[in-house]
Protein backbone atom coordinates (compact mmCIF):
# COMPACT_ATOMS: atom_id res chain seq x y z
CA UNK A 1 0.00 0.00 0.00
CA UNK A 2 2.66 2.45 1.05
CA UNK A 3 4.28 2.04 -2.31
CA UNK A 4 1.12 3.11 -4.07
CA UNK A 5 0.50 6.00 -1.72
CA UNK A 6 2.49 9.10 -2.56
CA UNK A 7 4.08 10.86 0.45
CA UNK A 8 2.40 13.89 1.92
CA UNK A 9 3.85 17.12 0.55
CA UNK A 10 6.04 18.99 2.97
CA UNK A 11 3.57 21.66 3.94
CA UNK A 12 1.09 19.07 5.16
CA UNK A 13 3.42 17.03 7.32
CA UNK A 14 3.02 17.60 11.07
CA UNK A 15 5.54 20.15 12.29
CA UNK A 16 7.67 19.21 15.28
CA UNK A 17 6.76 21.24 18.37
CA UNK A 18 8.66 24.42 18.89
CA UNK A 19 10.85 24.67 21.96
CA UNK A 20 8.67 27.46 23.36
CA UNK A 21 5.57 25.25 23.25
CA UNK A 22 7.20 22.58 25.34
CA UNK A 23 8.27 25.14 27.90
CA UNK A 24 4.83 26.64 28.13
CA UNK A 25 3.16 23.40 28.98
CA UNK A 26 5.54 22.68 31.83
CA UNK A 27 4.95 26.22 33.12
CA UNK A 28 1.27 25.60 33.68
CA UNK A 29 1.78 22.13 35.01
CA UNK A 30 1.21 21.09 38.60
CA UNK A 31 4.23 21.08 40.88
CA UNK A 32 4.68 17.33 40.56
CA UNK A 33 5.27 17.79 36.82
CA UNK A 34 2.00 16.13 35.64
CA UNK A 35 0.12 18.18 33.10
CA UNK A 36 -2.73 20.24 34.57
CA UNK A 37 -6.41 20.07 33.62
CA UNK A 38 -6.24 23.27 31.67
CA UNK A 39 -3.38 21.77 29.80
CA UNK A 40 -5.22 18.63 28.90
CA UNK A 41 -8.22 20.61 27.74
CA UNK A 42 -6.11 22.88 25.65
CA UNK A 43 -4.29 19.97 24.15
CA UNK A 44 -7.40 17.97 23.31
CA UNK A 45 -9.10 21.03 21.83
CA UNK A 46 -6.13 21.57 19.59
CA UNK A 47 -6.07 17.97 18.53
CA UNK A 48 -9.84 17.61 18.22
CA UNK A 49 -9.83 17.82 14.45
CA UNK A 50 -6.98 15.41 14.12
CA UNK A 51 -8.67 13.03 16.51
CA UNK A 52 -11.91 12.99 14.52
CA UNK A 53 -9.96 12.33 11.36
CA UNK A 54 -8.00 9.63 13.12
CA UNK A 55 -11.17 8.04 14.49
CA UNK A 56 -12.75 7.95 11.03
CA UNK A 57 -9.58 6.69 9.42
CA UNK A 58 -9.17 3.89 11.95
CA UNK A 59 -12.65 2.63 11.09
CA UNK A 60 -12.80 3.30 7.35
CA UNK A 61 -9.22 3.11 6.21
CA UNK A 62 -10.03 5.99 3.89
CA UNK A 63 -6.88 8.03 4.20
CA UNK A 64 -4.63 6.02 1.87
CA UNK A 65 -7.30 6.30 -0.81
CA UNK A 66 -7.82 9.99 -0.25
CA UNK A 67 -4.13 10.59 -0.20
CA UNK A 68 -3.73 8.51 -3.33
CA UNK A 69 -6.45 10.49 -5.06
CA UNK A 70 -5.27 13.93 -3.97
CA UNK A 71 -1.50 13.68 -4.16
CA UNK A 72 -1.20 11.44 -7.17
CA UNK A 73 0.70 13.22 -9.84
CA UNK A 74 -0.95 14.48 -12.97
CA UNK A 75 1.34 14.11 -15.96
CA UNK A 76 3.44 16.89 -17.32
CA UNK A 77 1.63 19.26 -19.64
CA UNK A 78 -1.77 18.99 -17.96
CA UNK A 79 -3.56 22.18 -19.00
CA UNK A 80 -6.90 23.96 -18.83
CA UNK A 81 -8.51 21.58 -21.31
CA UNK A 82 -8.34 18.97 -18.59
CA UNK A 83 -10.83 20.91 -16.48
CA UNK A 84 -13.70 20.29 -18.90
CA UNK A 85 -14.58 16.91 -17.38
CA UNK A 86 -14.78 18.20 -13.85
CA UNK A 87 -16.70 21.25 -15.06
CA UNK A 88 -19.24 18.88 -16.64
CA UNK A 89 -19.51 17.10 -13.33
CA UNK A 90 -19.99 20.41 -11.58
CA UNK A 91 -22.79 21.32 -13.98
CA UNK A 92 -24.41 17.97 -13.17
CA UNK A 93 -24.16 18.71 -9.44
CA UNK A 94 -25.70 22.12 -10.04
CA UNK A 95 -28.55 20.45 -11.94
CA UNK A 96 -29.05 18.02 -9.05
CA UNK A 97 -29.20 20.80 -6.45
CA UNK A 98 -31.52 23.10 -8.42
CA UNK A 99 -33.57 20.02 -9.37
CA UNK A 100 -34.14 19.15 -5.71
CA UNK A 101 -35.48 22.65 -5.05
CA UNK A 102 -37.76 22.47 -8.08
CA UNK A 103 -39.05 19.08 -6.93
CA UNK A 104 -40.16 20.67 -3.65
CA UNK A 105 -42.79 22.67 -5.52
CA UNK A 106 -43.39 20.75 -8.73
CA UNK A 107 -46.42 18.51 -9.13
CA UNK A 108 -46.17 15.80 -11.81
CA UNK A 109 -49.88 15.55 -12.38
CA UNK A 110 -51.20 16.31 -15.84
CA UNK A 111 -53.80 18.68 -14.39
CA UNK A 112 -51.39 20.44 -12.02
CA UNK A 113 -48.00 20.32 -13.72
CA UNK A 114 -48.41 23.57 -15.61
CA UNK A 115 -49.90 25.37 -12.60
CA UNK A 116 -47.06 24.25 -10.33
CA UNK A 117 -44.47 25.30 -12.90
CA UNK A 118 -46.09 28.70 -13.19
CA UNK A 119 -46.30 28.91 -9.37
CA UNK A 120 -42.54 28.26 -9.23
CA UNK A 121 -41.86 30.84 -11.92
CA UNK A 122 -44.06 33.61 -10.63
CA UNK A 123 -44.58 33.21 -6.90
CA UNK A 124 -41.94 31.10 -5.16
CA UNK A 125 -39.06 33.14 -3.72
CA UNK A 126 -36.20 33.02 -6.26
CA UNK A 127 -38.26 30.44 -8.13
CA UNK A 128 -37.62 31.89 -11.55
CA UNK A 129 -33.89 32.06 -10.87
CA UNK A 130 -33.75 28.41 -9.83
CA UNK A 131 -35.87 27.32 -12.79
CA UNK A 132 -33.68 29.40 -15.07
CA UNK A 133 -30.53 27.89 -13.62
CA UNK A 134 -31.93 24.40 -14.15
CA UNK A 135 -33.02 25.17 -17.70
CA UNK A 136 -29.82 26.90 -18.79
CA UNK A 137 -27.71 24.54 -16.71
CA UNK A 138 -28.79 21.76 -19.05
CA UNK A 139 -27.48 23.75 -22.01
CA UNK A 140 -24.21 24.47 -20.22
CA UNK A 141 -23.80 20.82 -19.27
CA UNK A 142 -24.37 19.65 -22.85
CA UNK A 143 -21.86 22.16 -24.21
CA UNK A 144 -19.24 21.18 -21.63
CA UNK A 145 -19.92 17.51 -22.33
CA UNK A 146 -19.27 17.93 -26.03
CA UNK A 147 -16.14 20.00 -25.39
CA UNK A 148 -14.86 17.37 -22.95
CA UNK A 149 -15.53 14.69 -25.52
CA UNK A 150 -13.70 16.72 -28.16
CA UNK A 151 -10.73 17.10 -25.80
CA UNK A 152 -10.46 13.37 -25.11
CA UNK A 153 -10.87 12.68 -28.82
CA UNK A 154 -8.22 15.11 -30.00
CA UNK A 155 -5.76 13.95 -27.33
CA UNK A 156 -6.30 10.33 -28.35
CA UNK A 157 -7.32 9.61 -24.76
CA UNK A 158 -9.74 6.87 -25.85
CA UNK A 159 -6.86 4.59 -26.79
CA UNK A 160 -5.21 1.90 -24.70
CA UNK A 161 -5.61 1.63 -21.71
CA UNK A 162 -8.61 4.02 -21.43
CA UNK A 163 -11.05 2.39 -23.91
CA UNK A 164 -13.54 1.55 -21.20
CA UNK A 165 -13.63 5.14 -19.97
CA UNK A 166 -14.59 6.30 -23.45
CA UNK A 167 -17.40 3.74 -23.59
CA UNK A 168 -18.72 4.87 -20.21
CA UNK A 169 -18.48 8.43 -21.49
CA UNK A 170 -20.64 7.72 -24.54
CA UNK A 171 -23.27 6.11 -22.31
CA UNK A 172 -23.16 9.25 -20.14
CA UNK A 173 -23.70 11.35 -23.25
CA UNK A 174 -26.81 9.36 -24.22
CA UNK A 175 -28.17 9.51 -20.67
CA UNK A 176 -27.60 13.26 -20.51
CA UNK A 177 -29.50 13.74 -23.78
CA UNK A 178 -32.27 11.55 -22.31
CA UNK A 179 -32.40 13.96 -19.37
CA UNK A 180 -32.96 16.79 -21.83
CA UNK A 181 -35.77 14.89 -23.55
CA UNK A 182 -37.62 13.81 -20.38
CA UNK A 183 -37.19 17.15 -18.65
CA UNK A 184 -38.52 19.15 -21.58
CA UNK A 185 -42.07 17.83 -21.09
CA UNK A 186 -42.31 18.67 -17.40
CA UNK A 187 -43.29 22.39 -17.53
CA UNK A 188 -46.19 21.15 -19.66
CA UNK A 189 -46.66 24.20 -21.82
CA UNK A 190 -47.63 23.99 -25.46
CA UNK A 191 -44.06 23.96 -26.71
CA UNK A 192 -42.87 21.18 -24.43
CA UNK A 193 -46.00 19.11 -24.98
CA UNK A 194 -45.90 19.13 -28.77
CA UNK A 195 -42.15 18.74 -29.02
CA UNK A 196 -42.39 15.68 -26.80
CA UNK A 197 -45.23 14.20 -28.87
CA UNK A 198 -43.14 14.57 -32.00
CA UNK A 199 -40.05 13.13 -30.29
CA UNK A 200 -41.96 10.10 -29.03
CA UNK A 201 -43.50 9.56 -32.46
CA UNK A 202 -40.03 9.68 -33.98
CA UNK A 203 -39.05 6.94 -31.52
CA UNK A 204 -42.08 4.95 -32.61
CA UNK A 205 -40.92 4.99 -36.23
CA UNK A 206 -37.75 3.07 -35.36
CA UNK A 207 -37.63 -0.45 -36.71
CA UNK A 208 -38.38 -3.34 -34.30
CA UNK A 209 -38.06 -1.80 -30.86
CA UNK A 210 -39.45 1.61 -31.84
CA UNK A 211 -43.14 0.97 -31.07
CA UNK A 212 -42.28 -0.68 -27.75
CA UNK A 213 -40.00 2.15 -26.74
CA UNK A 214 -42.69 4.69 -27.59
CA UNK A 215 -45.32 2.74 -25.65
CA UNK A 216 -42.95 2.55 -22.70
CA UNK A 217 -42.30 6.30 -22.74
CA UNK A 218 -45.97 7.18 -23.14
CA UNK A 219 -47.13 4.60 -20.63
CA UNK A 220 -49.55 3.16 -23.18
CA UNK A 221 -50.57 3.51 -26.79
CA UNK A 222 -51.68 7.11 -26.33
CA UNK A 223 -50.19 10.18 -24.78
CA UNK A 224 -52.01 10.32 -21.44
CA UNK A 225 -51.88 11.43 -17.81
CA UNK A 226 -49.45 8.62 -16.97
CA UNK A 227 -46.97 9.94 -19.51
CA UNK A 228 -45.98 12.93 -17.42
CA UNK A 229 -45.55 10.95 -14.17
CA UNK A 230 -43.50 8.46 -16.11
CA UNK A 231 -41.26 11.15 -17.57
CA UNK A 232 -40.93 12.64 -14.10
CA UNK A 233 -39.81 9.34 -12.57
CA UNK A 234 -37.29 8.81 -15.36
CA UNK A 235 -36.09 12.39 -15.15
CA UNK A 236 -35.52 12.63 -11.43
CA UNK A 237 -34.86 9.08 -10.28
CA UNK A 238 -33.76 6.56 -12.84
CA UNK A 239 -31.60 8.53 -15.26
CA UNK A 240 -29.83 10.76 -12.70
CA UNK A 241 -29.16 7.67 -10.57
CA UNK A 242 -27.54 5.98 -13.54
CA UNK A 243 -25.57 9.11 -14.41
CA UNK A 244 -24.25 9.48 -10.85
CA UNK A 245 -23.20 5.83 -10.72
CA UNK A 246 -21.50 6.03 -14.10
CA UNK A 247 -19.70 9.27 -13.20
CA UNK A 248 -18.39 7.36 -10.19
CA UNK A 249 -17.08 4.56 -12.41
CA UNK A 250 -15.68 7.12 -14.88
CA UNK A 251 -13.78 8.93 -12.14
CA UNK A 252 -12.57 5.71 -10.56
CA UNK A 253 -10.96 4.80 -13.87
CA UNK A 254 -9.53 8.30 -14.25
CA UNK A 255 -7.89 8.07 -10.82
CA UNK A 256 -6.68 4.54 -11.43
CA UNK A 257 -5.27 5.02 -14.93
CA UNK A 258 -4.34 8.68 -14.69
CA UNK A 259 -5.17 11.25 -17.33
CA UNK A 260 -3.26 11.23 -20.59
CA UNK A 261 -0.43 13.63 -21.16
CA UNK A 262 -0.84 15.90 -24.19
CA UNK A 263 0.21 13.70 -27.14
CA UNK A 264 2.78 16.20 -28.40
CA UNK A 265 4.85 15.84 -25.22
CA UNK A 266 7.68 13.36 -24.98
CA UNK A 267 9.34 12.32 -21.75
CA UNK A 268 12.78 13.83 -21.27
CA UNK A 269 15.14 10.96 -21.77
CA UNK A 270 17.88 12.58 -19.66
CA UNK A 271 15.87 12.24 -16.50
CA UNK A 272 15.08 8.68 -17.41
CA UNK A 273 18.71 7.70 -17.32
CA UNK A 274 19.21 9.57 -14.07
CA UNK A 275 16.39 7.66 -12.47
CA UNK A 276 17.47 4.34 -13.84
CA UNK A 277 20.91 4.57 -12.38
Amino acid at each position, binding site marked *: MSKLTPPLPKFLRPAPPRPSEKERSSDNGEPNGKPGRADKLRESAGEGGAQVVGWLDERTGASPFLRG*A*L*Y*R*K*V*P*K*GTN*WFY*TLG*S*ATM*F*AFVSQAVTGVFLAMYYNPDATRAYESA*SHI*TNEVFLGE*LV*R*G*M*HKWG*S*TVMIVLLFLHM*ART*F*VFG*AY*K*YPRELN*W*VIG*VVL*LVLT*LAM*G*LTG*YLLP*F*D*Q*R*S*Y*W*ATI*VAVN*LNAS*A*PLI*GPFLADFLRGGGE*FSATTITRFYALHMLLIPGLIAALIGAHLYLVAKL*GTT*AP*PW*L*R*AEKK*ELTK*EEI
Partner: protein
Amino acid sequence: MNAREKEEYLREYSILKTQGKPFFPYAVFKDTAMAAITLGVIILMAVLLGAELGPKADPTTTTYSPRPEWYFFFLFELLRVVKPPELVFMATLGIPTIWLMMLLLLPFYDLGPERHPLKRPIAMIGAVATVVGMAYLTILGAVAGSPAVIELEVAPRYEEGKLVTASQGCLGCHKIGESGNTLGPNLTHIGDRLGRDAIVRTLLNPTAPMPPYVDLQEESPEQFEQLVGFVASLKEEMPPPEESEPAEQASAEQK
Protein backbone atom coordinates in the same frame (compact mmCIF):
# COMPACT_ATOMS: atom_id res chain seq x y z
CA MET B 1 -1.53 -1.50 -30.75
CA ASN B 2 0.54 -4.58 -30.18
CA ALA B 3 2.04 -5.70 -26.88
CA ARG B 4 5.31 -3.87 -27.46
CA GLU B 5 3.55 -0.59 -28.28
CA LYS B 6 1.40 -0.93 -25.18
CA GLU B 7 4.45 -1.56 -23.04
CA GLU B 8 6.19 1.41 -24.58
CA TYR B 9 3.22 3.66 -23.99
CA LEU B 10 2.92 2.68 -20.33
CA ARG B 11 6.63 3.27 -19.77
CA GLU B 12 6.57 6.66 -21.44
CA TYR B 13 3.43 7.58 -19.51
CA SER B 14 4.87 6.66 -16.13
CA ILE B 15 7.83 8.91 -16.77
CA LEU B 16 5.64 11.81 -17.84
CA LYS B 17 3.69 11.24 -14.67
CA THR B 18 6.70 11.41 -12.37
CA GLN B 19 7.65 14.65 -14.13
CA GLY B 20 4.20 16.10 -13.41
CA LYS B 21 2.75 17.95 -10.47
CA PRO B 22 0.51 16.65 -7.68
CA PHE B 23 -3.24 16.73 -8.39
CA PHE B 24 -3.73 18.73 -5.20
CA PRO B 25 -3.38 21.69 -5.24
CA TYR B 26 -2.40 22.28 -8.90
CA ALA B 27 -5.20 20.54 -10.83
CA VAL B 28 -7.69 21.17 -8.02
CA PHE B 29 -7.06 24.89 -8.32
CA LYS B 30 -7.83 24.89 -12.06
CA ASP B 31 -10.88 22.68 -11.58
CA THR B 32 -12.22 24.98 -8.87
CA ALA B 33 -11.69 28.06 -11.01
CA MET B 34 -13.51 26.35 -13.88
CA ALA B 35 -16.37 25.32 -11.58
CA ALA B 36 -16.72 28.94 -10.46
CA ILE B 37 -16.83 30.09 -14.10
CA THR B 38 -19.42 27.41 -14.88
CA LEU B 39 -21.64 28.50 -12.00
CA GLY B 40 -21.21 32.12 -13.02
CA VAL B 41 -22.27 31.40 -16.60
CA ILE B 42 -25.30 29.39 -15.45
CA ILE B 43 -26.48 32.15 -13.10
CA LEU B 44 -25.83 34.83 -15.69
CA MET B 45 -27.84 32.97 -18.32
CA ALA B 46 -30.65 32.35 -15.81
CA VAL B 47 -30.80 36.03 -14.91
CA LEU B 48 -30.48 37.39 -18.45
CA LEU B 49 -32.57 34.84 -20.31
CA GLY B 50 -35.02 33.84 -17.58
CA ALA B 51 -37.26 30.81 -17.61
CA GLU B 52 -40.17 31.43 -19.90
CA LEU B 53 -43.35 29.43 -19.63
CA GLY B 54 -45.58 29.42 -22.69
CA PRO B 55 -49.33 28.82 -22.76
CA LYS B 56 -50.55 25.66 -21.06
CA ALA B 57 -50.39 22.40 -23.00
CA ASP B 58 -53.63 21.79 -24.83
CA PRO B 59 -54.00 18.30 -26.34
CA THR B 60 -57.10 19.34 -28.29
CA THR B 61 -55.25 21.73 -30.59
CA THR B 62 -53.12 20.10 -33.18
CA THR B 63 -52.17 23.54 -34.33
CA TYR B 64 -49.05 24.10 -32.28
CA SER B 65 -45.76 23.74 -34.08
CA PRO B 66 -43.35 21.67 -32.01
CA ARG B 67 -39.92 23.01 -31.24
CA PRO B 68 -37.39 20.87 -29.38
CA GLU B 69 -34.50 21.88 -27.15
CA TRP B 70 -31.72 23.28 -29.35
CA TYR B 71 -29.45 20.27 -28.95
CA PHE B 72 -32.03 18.15 -30.73
CA PHE B 73 -32.34 20.54 -33.68
CA PHE B 74 -29.96 18.47 -35.77
CA LEU B 75 -32.21 15.41 -35.41
CA PHE B 76 -35.32 17.32 -36.44
CA GLU B 77 -33.40 18.90 -39.28
CA LEU B 78 -32.20 15.55 -40.63
CA LEU B 79 -35.87 14.82 -41.22
CA ARG B 80 -36.20 17.76 -43.52
CA VAL B 81 -32.96 17.13 -45.38
CA VAL B 82 -33.83 13.53 -46.19
CA LYS B 83 -36.69 13.82 -48.65
CA PRO B 84 -38.00 10.45 -49.92
CA PRO B 85 -40.58 9.15 -47.39
CA GLU B 86 -39.25 5.60 -47.59
CA LEU B 87 -35.91 6.90 -46.32
CA VAL B 88 -37.34 8.96 -43.48
CA PHE B 89 -36.71 6.27 -40.89
CA MET B 90 -33.05 6.45 -41.92
CA ALA B 91 -33.04 10.13 -41.00
CA THR B 92 -34.83 9.76 -37.69
CA LEU B 93 -33.07 6.70 -36.44
CA GLY B 94 -30.74 5.07 -38.91
CA ILE B 95 -28.13 7.80 -39.19
CA PRO B 96 -28.12 8.72 -35.47
CA THR B 97 -27.90 5.05 -34.48
CA ILE B 98 -25.02 4.34 -36.83
CA TRP B 99 -23.29 7.51 -35.66
CA LEU B 100 -23.73 6.53 -32.02
CA MET B 101 -22.44 3.00 -32.61
CA MET B 102 -19.38 4.36 -34.38
CA LEU B 103 -18.77 6.69 -31.46
CA LEU B 104 -19.25 3.97 -28.86
CA LEU B 105 -16.97 1.49 -30.58
CA LEU B 106 -14.33 4.03 -31.59
CA PRO B 107 -11.57 2.66 -29.31
CA PHE B 108 -12.14 -0.82 -30.76
CA TYR B 109 -11.59 -0.05 -34.42
CA ASP B 110 -9.18 2.88 -34.16
CA LEU B 111 -6.30 0.76 -32.93
CA GLY B 112 -3.25 2.66 -34.08
CA PRO B 113 -0.71 3.64 -31.43
CA GLU B 114 -0.47 7.23 -32.66
CA ARG B 115 -2.13 9.83 -30.42
CA HIS B 116 -1.03 13.10 -31.95
CA PRO B 117 -4.05 14.66 -33.70
CA LEU B 118 -2.02 15.73 -36.73
CA LYS B 119 -0.76 12.19 -37.22
CA ARG B 120 -4.28 10.71 -37.17
CA PRO B 121 -5.63 12.33 -40.34
CA ILE B 122 -8.51 9.89 -40.92
CA ALA B 123 -9.85 10.18 -37.38
CA MET B 124 -9.53 13.96 -37.40
CA ILE B 125 -11.20 14.35 -40.80
CA GLY B 126 -14.06 12.13 -39.65
CA ALA B 127 -14.43 14.15 -36.46
CA VAL B 128 -14.30 17.53 -38.19
CA ALA B 129 -16.83 16.35 -40.80
CA THR B 130 -19.16 15.19 -38.02
CA VAL B 131 -18.84 18.44 -36.12
CA VAL B 132 -19.37 20.56 -39.24
CA GLY B 133 -22.37 18.44 -40.25
CA MET B 134 -24.00 18.66 -36.86
CA ALA B 135 -23.28 22.35 -36.52
CA TYR B 136 -24.71 22.99 -39.99
CA LEU B 137 -27.90 21.06 -39.21
CA THR B 138 -28.22 22.77 -35.82
CA ILE B 139 -27.92 26.21 -37.40
CA LEU B 140 -30.42 25.26 -40.11
CA GLY B 141 -32.76 24.06 -37.39
CA ALA B 142 -32.27 27.24 -35.41
CA VAL B 143 -33.09 29.59 -38.26
CA ALA B 144 -35.90 27.49 -39.73
CA GLY B 145 -39.04 26.33 -38.02
CA SER B 146 -39.70 22.74 -37.08
CA PRO B 147 -40.05 20.18 -39.88
CA ALA B 148 -43.83 20.17 -39.63
CA VAL B 149 -44.06 23.86 -40.48
CA ILE B 150 -45.17 25.43 -43.73
CA GLU B 151 -42.99 28.42 -44.43
CA LEU B 152 -45.41 30.63 -46.21
CA GLU B 153 -46.88 34.01 -45.43
CA VAL B 154 -50.64 33.75 -45.33
CA ALA B 155 -53.54 35.93 -44.35
CA PRO B 156 -54.29 35.65 -40.63
CA ARG B 157 -57.58 33.89 -41.20
CA TYR B 158 -55.70 31.04 -42.86
CA GLU B 159 -53.09 30.75 -40.08
CA GLU B 160 -55.05 28.08 -38.21
CA GLY B 161 -55.61 26.12 -41.41
CA LYS B 162 -51.90 26.32 -42.20
CA LEU B 163 -51.02 24.80 -38.85
CA VAL B 164 -53.66 22.07 -39.22
CA THR B 165 -52.33 21.24 -42.66
CA ALA B 166 -48.78 21.05 -41.34
CA SER B 167 -49.82 18.82 -38.45
CA GLN B 168 -51.72 16.44 -40.75
CA GLY B 169 -48.55 15.41 -42.54
CA CYS B 170 -49.47 16.63 -46.03
CA LEU B 171 -45.84 17.82 -46.35
CA GLY B 172 -44.73 14.21 -46.27
CA CYS B 173 -45.87 14.00 -49.91
CA HIS B 174 -46.68 17.51 -51.10
CA LYS B 175 -44.67 20.62 -51.52
CA ILE B 176 -46.23 23.84 -50.26
CA GLY B 177 -44.04 26.85 -50.87
CA GLU B 178 -40.49 25.93 -49.90
CA SER B 179 -41.49 23.16 -47.49
CA GLY B 180 -42.37 19.55 -48.09
CA ASN B 181 -41.62 16.65 -50.39
CA THR B 182 -42.28 16.03 -54.03
CA LEU B 183 -43.99 12.64 -54.09
CA GLY B 184 -47.45 14.08 -54.79
CA PRO B 185 -48.34 17.14 -56.88
CA ASN B 186 -47.05 20.51 -55.74
CA LEU B 187 -49.83 22.27 -53.85
CA THR B 188 -48.34 25.75 -53.80
CA HIS B 189 -50.89 27.06 -56.32
CA ILE B 190 -53.48 24.30 -56.05
CA GLY B 191 -56.27 26.86 -55.54
CA ASP B 192 -55.90 27.94 -59.16
CA ARG B 193 -56.54 24.42 -60.42
CA LEU B 194 -59.04 23.01 -57.93
CA GLY B 195 -61.96 24.57 -56.17
CA ARG B 196 -62.98 23.97 -52.58
CA ASP B 197 -65.32 21.10 -53.43
CA ALA B 198 -62.75 19.32 -55.56
CA ILE B 199 -60.27 19.51 -52.72
CA VAL B 200 -62.82 18.09 -50.27
CA ARG B 201 -63.52 15.30 -52.73
CA THR B 202 -59.81 14.55 -53.03
CA LEU B 203 -59.39 14.47 -49.27
CA LEU B 204 -62.33 12.15 -48.70
CA ASN B 205 -61.74 9.86 -51.64
CA PRO B 206 -58.14 10.19 -52.81
CA THR B 207 -56.18 8.11 -55.24
CA ALA B 208 -53.60 5.86 -53.62
CA PRO B 209 -51.05 6.39 -52.15
CA MET B 210 -52.65 9.47 -50.62
CA PRO B 211 -54.57 8.43 -47.47
CA PRO B 212 -58.21 9.48 -47.00
CA TYR B 213 -58.94 12.13 -44.36
CA VAL B 214 -62.48 10.99 -43.53
CA ASP B 215 -61.57 10.56 -39.86
CA LEU B 216 -60.47 14.16 -39.56
CA GLN B 217 -63.72 15.38 -41.08
CA GLU B 218 -65.79 13.26 -38.70
CA GLU B 219 -63.79 13.86 -35.54
CA SER B 220 -62.98 17.55 -35.85
CA PRO B 221 -65.00 19.09 -38.68
CA GLU B 222 -63.84 22.55 -37.67
CA GLN B 223 -60.19 21.71 -38.32
CA PHE B 224 -61.15 19.98 -41.54
CA GLU B 225 -62.83 23.18 -42.68
CA GLN B 226 -59.78 25.24 -41.74
CA LEU B 227 -57.54 22.85 -43.65
CA VAL B 228 -59.69 22.97 -46.77
CA GLY B 229 -59.94 26.74 -46.51
CA PHE B 230 -56.18 27.05 -46.35
CA VAL B 231 -55.49 24.65 -49.23
CA ALA B 232 -58.11 26.35 -51.42
CA SER B 233 -56.51 29.72 -50.68
CA LEU B 234 -53.18 28.64 -52.17
CA LYS B 235 -53.18 30.69 -55.34
CA GLU B 236 -50.63 32.34 -57.55
CA GLU B 237 -51.88 35.72 -56.43
CA MET B 238 -52.23 35.52 -52.68
CA PRO B 239 -53.82 38.41 -50.82
CA PRO B 240 -50.91 40.14 -49.03
CA PRO B 241 -51.09 39.25 -45.33
CA GLU B 242 -50.95 42.82 -43.95
CA GLU B 243 -53.85 44.21 -45.92
CA SER B 244 -56.39 41.63 -44.93
CA GLU B 245 -55.62 42.10 -41.25
CA PRO B 246 -57.78 45.16 -40.57
CA ALA B 247 -60.73 43.58 -42.36
CA GLU B 248 -60.35 40.51 -40.19
CA GLN B 249 -60.29 42.62 -37.04
CA ALA B 250 -63.25 44.64 -38.15
CA SER B 251 -65.33 41.57 -38.77
CA ALA B 252 -64.31 40.22 -35.38
CA GLU B 253 -65.40 43.46 -33.73
CA GLN B 254 -68.74 43.42 -35.49
CA LYS B 255 -69.46 40.07 -33.92
